[in-house]
C-alpha cells in the first residue's frame, strides 16, 4: 500500500471569468516514477494498485479567493473518495482507497469557487489507471472509459 497525493490546481480567476474549468484545471501526482502520465493537464492518469491510498489536495491559484474541492466522482467499484476537513481548519481534501486493481477509471472533479460559491465540474476527465495501460506498451490505447477487468 502506498499513499499517492493528487494535487488539483485551479486557475480560480480564469475559471470564474470563463465560467468553466476547461483550460483552468491542472492535475499532478507524486507517482510519476511509477508510471503516472499527463502531469500538469486536466487528464492526469494516476497509476494505482489495489490498496493504494489516494489524497486529492487543492491548489487554488488565488489564495485570497474561496476555492474548495466539492466532489470527486468515481466508479464506486474502484474507489469511493470521502470528503475530509483538515483538523482546526476549513480546508477540504478528499481521501479514498483503491478497492481493486483496474484498467482505467475516469473521474470527475467539481470545485466550489468564489463568493457566493458556484459549482464548476471538469469537462475532460482525469483517470486512475492500472498496470495494463503502461506508457510505452501501447501508447494512446484505452483513451475512452474502460470496463472492470
Amino acid at each position, binding site marked *: 500500500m502506498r499513499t499517492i497525493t493528487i*494535487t488539483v490546481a485551479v486557475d480560480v480567476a480564469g475559471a470564474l471569468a470563463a465560467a468553466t474549468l476547461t483550460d483552468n484545471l491542472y492535475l*499532478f501526482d507524486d507517482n510519476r516514477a511509477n508510471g503516472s502520465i499527463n502531469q500538469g493537464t486536466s487528464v492526469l492518469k494516476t497509476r494505482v494498485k489495489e490498496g493504494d491510498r489516494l489524497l486529492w489536495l487543492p*491548489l487554488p*491559484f488565488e489564495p485570497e479567493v474561496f476555492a474548495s474541492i466539492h466532489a470527486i466522482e468515481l466508479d464506486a467499484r474502484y474507489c469511493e473518495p470521502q470528503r475530509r476537513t483538515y483538523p482546526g481548519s476549513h480546508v477540504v481534501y478528499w481521501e479514498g482507497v483503491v478497492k481493486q486493481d483496474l484498467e482505467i477509471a475516469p473521474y470527475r472533479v467539481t470545485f466550489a469557487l468564489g463568493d457566493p460559491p458556484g459549482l464548476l465540474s471538469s469537462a475532460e476527465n482525469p483517470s486512475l489507471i492500472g498496470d495494463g495501460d503502461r506508457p510505452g506498451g501501447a501508447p494512446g490505447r484505452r483513451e475512452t472509459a474502460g470496463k472492470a477487468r
Partner: protein
Amino acid sequence: MAQQITVYVLIDSVAAFEANRLEGNIYLMDNLRTEGSKNQGTGQLVTAINGTAWSNGTQANEPLLNWLVAGLSSLPVTLPRNYQLDRSRESERVALDAMRLDARALKSDPGAENVRDGLIRAAAALGVHPRFENEHGELERHALQLLDLRGEVVPEADLEADDIHQLPPIITDITGEAVDEGILYPAQYGTPVPINAGWYWSATASTQRPGVYSYTMHIKVYKLIFAGGQPIWQDKDMTYDSQIQVRSRQMVNGFTGGGTGLLPIC
C-alpha cells in the same frame, strides 16, 4: 495599476531530492494563460509580461511578478499560516493534560496499572521533532513536529509511514539574464497569505526592452531522511531556469480602445 502576475512553482520534492535535479520534477503555471503565457503545467513555462508605454515611449505600468512554491507531497498551501506549529502545540497540550492527570492519579495510588498504561500511551502518542542542520553545520531540533498529509501529528511508532508531510521547497534567490539585464528586480517579501509561512519572492519588471529573457530560480528542496534512527530534514540546493516574454504596446483607453484622454461621459 501594476499588473499582478503569479508564477506557481510545483515541485515533486521527494523525486527531485532523490534524482538530485529539478528537471522532470518541477511544473510551472501562471495566471496569464489568456494573455499569452505558454506551456502551462510543464517545466517550460514562458510567462507573458505585457507592458504598456505612453506615447512618448516611457513605461506606463510596472508589472509585478510573484513566485509561489508548493510541494507535491506536502499539505495544501491554503492551510493557515502557522498550521504545522498550531498542530504541534495542540498535540503537546493534549498529551501534557493527559500526563498531568495520570501523574496525579499515580501519586494517590502508585500501583495503579491502568494509570501507568495511560501514561505510557500518552507518551507514545507524542509527536516527533526532527533535526536539521543549522548554519554552523550542527544538528538542531526543528521547532515543528512531523505531521502527516491529513494534518495529524506523527508519533514515533509511525515514522516509517509514507504519508508524512514533506517540508515544502523554498526559493532562496532569483538571478540570471533577466536580472543581469535590468528587466527583473527581484526581492523577498512577507504577506499574511499562508503560503510558505508568508514569505514569497516578487519582482518588478521593466518593459522598456521587449524580448525573451531567462531567469534562474534557486530552490532549496527538503526530504525527511533517517540517520541512526533519527529523523532529519535534509536539504539540497538546486537551480532551475525559466523564461519571460516581455512585450510592450502603447497605452490605450480600456473602455474605448482609443487614446488615453478623458473617459467617455454617458
